[in-house]
């Protein structure tokens, strides 16, 4: 994937988010985060639960306001949701009364684009993720992994430039999750240009991304920006390699370091188990 190093496709500058700002219960969910993504990169934001990484993603998608700092995508400041961005949420969020195909076409309907022009594309996407026989099934007839696959297709059907994913596979079992990761890489190489993937799984981040941004809980900011050296396509087996595990170990250390000064050992060890998963 050719990456123009100097291009500032996504620009996040000193961005903070404070909930209930100005009150005694003010909570700083994101604290002065800055990074730049060139077009075409697959970037993972890695951090423990509650570190504000989802909030960061929602701000990038224009679904949350920014308390301080600024975000620009494609050179234009983010002030609200955009059609050049596709978002995948933690749950599949399918509409229960619509078939898989109609769920995939939902964005087209909302965007008032001609359905006929997209129907074939939607079918191809569903076939691509192995749901050939399920395009007319309703969500309740699909398994959790299948629903998330429909959600991937829905995020890709209108061909967004940037795909934002908020722990999309965290509710799936480990085996399904590995499958979904492989599938996602496959699709990303064909369809999207730039991807930001939020996760609390170190291995998932290293397997998927060109670059891993590590976020910690206190302060809720990015403490590490690591480039993953593996070439694509990546077979599942790279997870067994020494280099892969060294990178994972390094990332784990970085996360634990940032938790140590707080002197809360029990919480850290819980946090670690969570991270390994």
């Amino acid at each position, binding site marked *: 994937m050719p990456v123009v190093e100097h291009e500032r496709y996504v620009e996040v500058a000193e961005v903070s988010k404070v909930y209930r700002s100005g009150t005694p219960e003010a909570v700083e969910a994101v604290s002065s985060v800055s990074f730049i993504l060139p077009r075409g990169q697959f970037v993972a934001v890695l951090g423990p639960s509650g570190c504000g990484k989802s909030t960061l993603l929602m701000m990038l*998608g*224009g*679904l949350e306001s920014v308390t301080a700092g600024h975000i620009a995508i494609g050179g234009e400041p983010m002030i*609200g*949701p*955009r*059609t050049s*961005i596709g*978002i995948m*949420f*933690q*749950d599949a*969020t399918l*509409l229960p*009364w*619509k*078939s898989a195909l*109609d769920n995939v076409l*939902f*964005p087209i*309907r*909302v*965007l008032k684009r001609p359905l006929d022009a997209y129907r074939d594309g939607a079918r191809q996407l569903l076939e691509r993720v192995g749901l050939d026989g399920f395009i007319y099934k*309703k969500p309740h007839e699909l398994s959790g992994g299948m629903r998330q696959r429909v959600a991937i297709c829905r995020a890709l059907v209108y061909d967004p430039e940037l795909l934002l994913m908020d722990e999309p596979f965290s509710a799936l079992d480990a085996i399904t999750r590995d499958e979904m990761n492989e599938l996602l890489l496959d699709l990303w190489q064909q369809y999207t240009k730039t991807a930001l993937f939020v996760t609390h799984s170190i291995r998932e981040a290293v397997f998927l991304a060109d670059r891993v941004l590590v976020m910690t809980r206190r302060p809720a900011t990015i403490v590490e920006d690591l480039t993953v050296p593996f070439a694509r396509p990546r077979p599942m087996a790279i997870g067994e390699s020494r280099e892969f595990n060294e990178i994972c170990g390094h990332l784990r250390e970085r996360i634990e370091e940032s938790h140590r000064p707080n002197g809360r050992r029990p919480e850290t060890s819980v946090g670690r188990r969570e991270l390994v998963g």
Partner: protein
Amino acid sequence: MTAEYSAVPRIGIAPARLAGNAVLAAPHLRRLRPVILPLLMAAVVLLVWQFVVTVLRIPAVILPPPVEIGHELWRAFPVLLHHAVPTTLDSLMAFFLASALGVGLAIAITYSPFLRDMLYPNLIVFQLIPKVALAPLFVVWLGIGSESRVVFAAFVSFFPVVISTAVGFANVEASALRLCRSLTASEWQCFAMVRFPFALPAIFSGMKIAMTMAVIGVIIGEFISAQAGLGFYILYASSRMETAVIFAALFVLCVIGVALFGAVALAEELVRRSYGRR
């Protein structure tokens, strides 16, 4: 999986007990079971009723036997039909009024926090008033014509629609609305494409209650002031001690109620299916 076993979870009877139900367990009969069983039950009740009334020689004025009620139903059918018309029409009118106002108010409550904070607690308190006690007021306000009965019945049946619809709108999956917003959908699109279809089961459950309440409201209205209608006819028959006629009228009322309820259920099925197709 045996045929018998598959029926167990649905009706919750242990397999051993089910064996005693051999007649209904036959495959072709089992499908008709939801129809046959209640009809059988009703038939048994009628038989016992007939038997008890005959054996204990209960006077027909107190409790007429089913056979006599059937006879009365046959004899007075044209009159009953004549009185059924205004009752049915008033109930339908009240139902539509209540549904339109109820859904409308629920939308207002959903989209305006100001209106919600102002109205919702009052609606709940109002729910608690025994609204039947207000029926005479409607006669004072709107006279003895059909308007007072329709408005009273609508008033009675309006509450379940508002409450149920408002709850339905509020319980829409937040993530679905977020998805909608992420696609730059307008407020109207979010409502029409997500919030409304999500709330349909709740709206229809409110409307089903409203339908039965509307019939009740109209009958109460007819008890108070009317020159026609089944409520009026029941009162008239009771003043003449024609108990069998009362029961015959009740039977007709029952049929009307079932038909109206069924119509709402059918409408729900059609609307939900039409959403599924899109």
